[in-house]
């Protein structure tokens, strides 16, 4: 649960804009987003994004995100080596890990953490349809900072029937909890490779592979592990390996089923050296209405995962590696997604929303319903089932 306090990183290498569908030269997009779940984690994270053409073949993009987080676990106190699991020294809370979310008396009205993220980058066209881009990102909050650099090159071949993308991301993070006396660093490096291939005039496929190396402090500084010995127990900080190699490969195909509708299907396989292995399948159907003035989409996703080799729901004795982090447990999750996009011509006819109807503008809305089940209860909430929804409203204008 505490991972959310490290923020919502951004997507620095986007593999859209392929096959001659060039990205907009000038675009402004504002989104108001929220994440809410039954573990009492609430996040609001509005974003502002701007792309501006600054030369014949060069574009600038800037981004700002702020996320405000409240989580029951951030207000709790699990004593470890004389310090608390809470994220701030001034926090009041409860002391029992067995207490269910909803039973403590911590007030809900205030945000526990606020994070600010700033991003900027340039992209430049070259050759016959190629694009090179470089981006930087800085994120800061009271107990965590992150710096990221990313670069990518996209180039089409065979009359744009094949597009290849190669990218790299490097990041340097620093964790310095208020309730600890230390600060610890984490580095990550990712290489990615993608191929997009036109199969026929109505179908296109994409293959993506990514390889990530993490090293340093890969644990959550606030989660604690209880080692139970008979009728007594002691609490310890979590301890995980300081290296992790993560590999993923995914493939997806998009079919134009009618003149106004499409279906996308995809599969991803993931594995890492912590012995986590996962399989993901997804599908999304989209359809235009009102002469493309309105687009609706509905999709689904199914995910299965094995647990990290050192994960245990409880530990009978102290071990070299110990974690109770639910995302390292085995799990099955399902997601249902709804999308809505309304173009300016239709926006003009809708009361209230009509105020957003500038030329080349669009109103965007997304709703995701998410369920995850783990075989053992979460370390803090004591629930096996996580129910969450992600809600997003956006406004985009191209100029």
């Amino acid at each position, binding site marked *: 649960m505490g991972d*959310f306090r490290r923020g919502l990183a951004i997507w620095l290498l986007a593999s859209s804009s392929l096959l*001659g569908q060039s990205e907009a030269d000038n675009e402004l997009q504002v989104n108001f987003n929220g994440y809410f779940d039954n573990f009492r984690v609430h996040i609001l994270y509005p974003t502002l994004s701007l792309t501006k053409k600054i030369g014949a073949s060069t574009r600038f993009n800037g981004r700002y995100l702020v996320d405000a987080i409240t989580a029951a676990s951030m207000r709790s106190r699990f004593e470890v080596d004389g310090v608390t699991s809470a994220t701030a020294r001034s926090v009041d809370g409860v002391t029992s890990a067995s207490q269910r979310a909803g039973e403590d008396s911590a007030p809900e009205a205030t945000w526990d953490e606020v994070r600010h993220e700033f991003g900027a980058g340039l992209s430049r066209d070259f050759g016959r349809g190629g694009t090179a881009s470089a981006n930087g990102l800085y994120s800061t909050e009271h107990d965590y900072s992150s710096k990221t650099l990313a670069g990518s090159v996209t180039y089409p071949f065979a*009359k744009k029937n094949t597009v290849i993308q190669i990218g790299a991301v490097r990041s340097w993070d620093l964790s310095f909890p208020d309730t600890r006396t230390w600060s610890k660093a984490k580095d990550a490096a990712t290489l990615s490779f993608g191929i997009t*291939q*036109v199969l026929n005039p109505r179908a296109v496929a994409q293959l993506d592979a990514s390889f990530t190396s993490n090293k340093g402090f890969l644990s959550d500084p606030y989660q604690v592990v209880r080692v139970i010995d008979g009728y007594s127990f002691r609490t310890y900080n979590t301890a995980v390996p300081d290296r992790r190699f993560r590999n993923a490969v995914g493939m997806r195909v998009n079919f134009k089923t009618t003149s106004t509708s499409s279906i996308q299907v995809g599969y991803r396989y993931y594995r890492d050296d912590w012995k986590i292995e996962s399989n993901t399948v997804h599908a999304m159907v989209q359809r235009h209405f009102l002469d493309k003035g309105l687009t609706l989409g509905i999709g689904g996703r199914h995910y299965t995962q094995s647990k990290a080799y050192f994960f245990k729901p409880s530990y009978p004795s102290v071990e070299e590696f110990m974690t109770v982090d639910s995302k390292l447990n085995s799990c099955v999750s399902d997601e249902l997604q709804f999308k809505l996009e309304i173009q300016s011509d239709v926006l003009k006819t809708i009361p209230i929303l009509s105020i957003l109807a500038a030329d080349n503008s669009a109103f965007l809305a997304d709703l995701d319903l998410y369920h*995850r089940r783990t075989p053992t209860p979460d370390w803090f909430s004591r629930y096996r089932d996580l129910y969450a929804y992600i809600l997003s409203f956006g406004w985009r204008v191209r100029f």
Partner: protein
Amino acid sequence: MARRLPVFLLFCILLLSLASGCARVQPWQREDLSDPIMIFDENPIEKGIREHPLDYREGSSGGTGSQSGGCGCG
């Protein structure tokens, strides 16, 4: 199990290579392909908004056409 990933990767590359040999779509045949609903990640901002919370609820990431940067990957 360890061999699954490279095997799957090679299979996909082979599949795409074969596919590229079978069809070459001309620019004037791309009306359907240029439809926004045919673009992978047509709005990468929204894609990130939707996917990133899942990165903190599941142990996997990557392989979906976009890369996260920065924090919380442990």
